[in-house]
């Protein structure tokens, strides 16, 4: 059954007075990767904590794998993996011991710590104490720990934060492998390229509210502006830049005019990026 892995309805969480998550509703289909984006303090981590049963919704509800997370968190928790935003490993234990402890708690039969550590690029360092790990190595171990129980849903709160480009790419590969296996992925990140590349759909949250949720393609269509950027020679012999917004009625005329009037040196089209949309939505656009 390709049902919904996560159904949030009017989900709300308050820290005392502060509304961190404000009546959000969305669904994540089984096997889908949902990228969850938003500025600092928008409520991403709080949403993850509510969806994983760490915080109790103040209003609304979250049905995760068909179970009301507020009613039976432990039953849900047995089937999900969580990579926390802040590293929380047993520093005095080795990487292997960390994973084995969690595998035992999840009751995973025939758990292979070495294979999992190799997947996140920690082969050869299995027996080292975590306190001797670098920040990035700890982060990779955090991702590995979220995978010990072969979760049906993976909640990853900024999993590539602090990783070098190669390690980050490796983690992205792991995320795609997990999806291949059938897992649903709820991914928060500040890396727009990453969100664009990995996500089936992207949700933007700002001040506790979901302000946009769609496929990257549709979002770009809707909010992004594609443009032609040209370099032309100026009368004094230098270079000047010209920009023409695409996908508008007047675009064609503007292009003709450019070539008619100016001496064009280079021209290329600029695709809309999630970054633009992010700024558009959170900076000036929707929230004002």
């Amino acid at each position: 059954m390709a049902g919904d892995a996560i159904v949030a309805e009017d989900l709300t969480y308050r820290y005392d007075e502060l509304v961190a998550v404000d009546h959000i509703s969305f669904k994540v289909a089984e096997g889908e990767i949902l990228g969850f984006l938003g500025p600092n303090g928008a409520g991403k981590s709080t949403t993850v904590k509510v969806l994983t049963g760490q915080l109790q919704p103040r209003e609304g509800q979250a049905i995760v794998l068909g179970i009301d997370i507020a009613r039976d968190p432990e039953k849900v928790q047995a089937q999900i993996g969580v990579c926390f935003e802040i590293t929380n490993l047993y520093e005095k234990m080795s990487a292997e011991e960390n994973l084995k402890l969690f595998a035992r708690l999840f009751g995973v039969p025939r758990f292979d710590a070495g294979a999992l550590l190799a997947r996140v690029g920690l082969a050869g360092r299995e027996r080292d104490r975590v306190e001797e790990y670098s920040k990035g190595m700890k982060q990779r171990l955090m991702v590995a720990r979220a995978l010990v129980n072969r979760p049906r849903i993976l909640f990853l709160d900024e999993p590539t934060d602090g990783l070098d480009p190669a390690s980050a790419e490796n983690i992205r590969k792991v995320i795609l492998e997990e999806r291949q296996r059938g897992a649903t992925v709820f991914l928060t990140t500040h890396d727009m390229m990453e969100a664009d590349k990995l996500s089936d759909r992207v949700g933007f949250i700002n001040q506790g509210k979901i302000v946009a949720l769609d496929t990257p393609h549709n979002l770009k269509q809707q909010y992004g502006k594609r443009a032609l950027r040209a370099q032309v020679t100026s009368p004094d012999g230098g270079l000047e830049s010209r920009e023409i917004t695409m996908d508008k009625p007047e675009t064609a005329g503007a292009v003709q005019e450019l070539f008619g009037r100016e001496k064009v040196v280079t021209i290329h089209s600029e695709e809309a990026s999630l970054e633009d949309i992010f700024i558009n939505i959170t900076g000036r656009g929707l929230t004002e």
Partner: protein
Amino acid sequence: MSLRRVGILLSKEFRHGSKSFIFIIAIVMPLVLSFVLSMVFGTLFSEKPKLGVSDEGDSQITQMVIQSDSIIGREYDSADALRNAVEDGAVDMGIVLPADFDNLVIQGEMAEITAYVWGESLAKNRVVLGATVANMIRDVAGQEVPVEIATTTLGDAESIPWNNRLLPLIVLMAIVFGGIMVPATSLVDEKQKRTLSALAITPASLGEIFLSKGLVGVIVSTVMGVLILVLNQAFGAQTPLLIGMLVLGAVMASTFGIMLGVFAKDVTSLFATNKAIGILYYAPAFVYMFPDIPQWIGRIFPTYYVVQPVVEISQQGGTWSDVALEAFILIGLILIMIGIVGILARRTAQREALA
């Protein structure tokens, strides 16, 4: 509640928590205290209890006393010599056997012996000696016989020996410190390092996590309690009962430790709290130490119901009926505390504090 998961967590606590500073302190401190005490009062690995006999006839008991392995026996020529020996503390107890003693007891008649007790002798020694003499008389008579023992205490009767006075404190320290601080620091440490939130999103419940940490406290605390009593040769005769009381004491301390750990935000505030209320744990022991203080004051403090039965059993030869009331009060206190911890473990606010 899954015992399998509690077992997993328990083994993790022992393998990785046992290197912690507090864990080591909990084990080392009572041992060091015991050794210091024994240096000062010379009781650790102390000699066997000493029994003096003055025999006005020719009793088999005299031979039995002298040949006994469990006590040191000495024979004195006259009742006066025996009396002097007891007064000086050369023996803990002395008995005067009348001329026809063996015949009297064999015939099952009421026999009378005079006993002198050194006022500063250890209570446990008196218990051992009393029991030994009673056994010997039964062996000679071949049956249970009525014997009247007229006891006279010699020397300073009021002066309870210092190591008898201090033993309650050391026993309490052995039970209470490890019992409270081992689970409390382990819990607070995991809160501070946020590993507790990682455990909390596994199928393990907070209740299971609390239980595993509490059990570590119970085990450490019980083992230390037993060890300290054995080292101080104060185990008495009622081994299972005594261990049972130590376990109850350990359970109470550990449950309280979990409560402290739940409420303390960090290790610093945990230690501050413990320091502030620590005097309350040991208060009953101080009451013992100074017999001039009205002894009922001790009963106000919950730890009284731990230490009183332990002292009663180990020092005064108490049995179940002597400690049943305290034991039931202790069990009641424990049930209330476990109830509170159970509620805390289920409270939403408690879980949310970890996120």
